[in-house]
């Protein structure tokens, strides 16, 4: 059961639930079509796991990507099973805006690292979209 999200009560260091999925030819084709890149890898789908890991635990609230940092290690291939793990790495308030930082690490079925990500979400910060 999901918990209501509260920025004030979010705990830095909280480990989020792990997520696993298989890289299929269909998912890869869909990603390549969406990015109009016939040679694209799945790597940025893995990068979006931050949202799924966070909102699998908490009831989703409005948030906007403010920053994204990624470290890539290996290209996943069709048939690989990716497991992503994440944690709330930081939270802070700057100029009245509330930011939540989520770190994730994705590995394949052999334990090899695919990528790590550090994502900064602007919580409820719609003004950051049109006012940026």
């Amino acid at each position: 059961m999901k918990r209501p999200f509260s920025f004030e009560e979010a705990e830095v260091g909280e480990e989020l639930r792990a997520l696993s999925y298989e890289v299929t030819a269909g998912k890869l084709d869909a990603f390549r079509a969406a990015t109009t890149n016939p040679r694209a890898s799945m790597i940025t789908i893995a990068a979006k796991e931050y949202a799924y890991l966070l909102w699998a635990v908490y009831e989703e609230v409005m948030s906007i990507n403010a920053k994204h940092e990624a470290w890539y290690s290996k290209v996943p291939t069709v048939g690989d099973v990716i497991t992503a793990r994440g944690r709330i790495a930081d939270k802070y308030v700057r100029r009245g805006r509330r930011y939540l930082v989520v770190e994730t690490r994705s590995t394949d079925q052999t334990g090899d690292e695919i990528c790590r990500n550090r994502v900064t979400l602007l919580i409820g910060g719609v003004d950051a979209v049109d006012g940026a």
Partner: protein
Amino acid sequence: MTTPDPLVKTLTAAQIAAFERCAAEVLGRPDDPTIHTDEDLAREAGIAGPPIASGMVTVAFLNEYLEARFGPAWHESGHLSVAFVAPTRAGETVTVDATETGRRTTDDGEVVSLDVWCANEHGQRATVGSADVRLPGGSS
């Protein structure tokens, strides 16, 4: 390895929706609405005008550019750090480009550093940041 021309992409609402769908497919929930695909949700969130793309769309574009520039080394040792400073909307033409800012030699090869960005057709940079990649054997 050669320096490629800037990568130019025209973004459509259908593409933005397709990206959301295939990303959500990971969870088996490809039809979940998001602010990127649902007008009512977007309006509720205060976002007017054409749909905005997830920041991960421009990250995907940067990955395409950097892979073209550095080959497999990008996905094996690349580091990307970007800020989303303005929205990228359906109907915009996005240009992805980079400039080299430095090189250093390490025990594992040469590390190349760059400034990277995605700009719209008006030259406004919506996604900006830096990238580093290690080139095995120091080739470039």
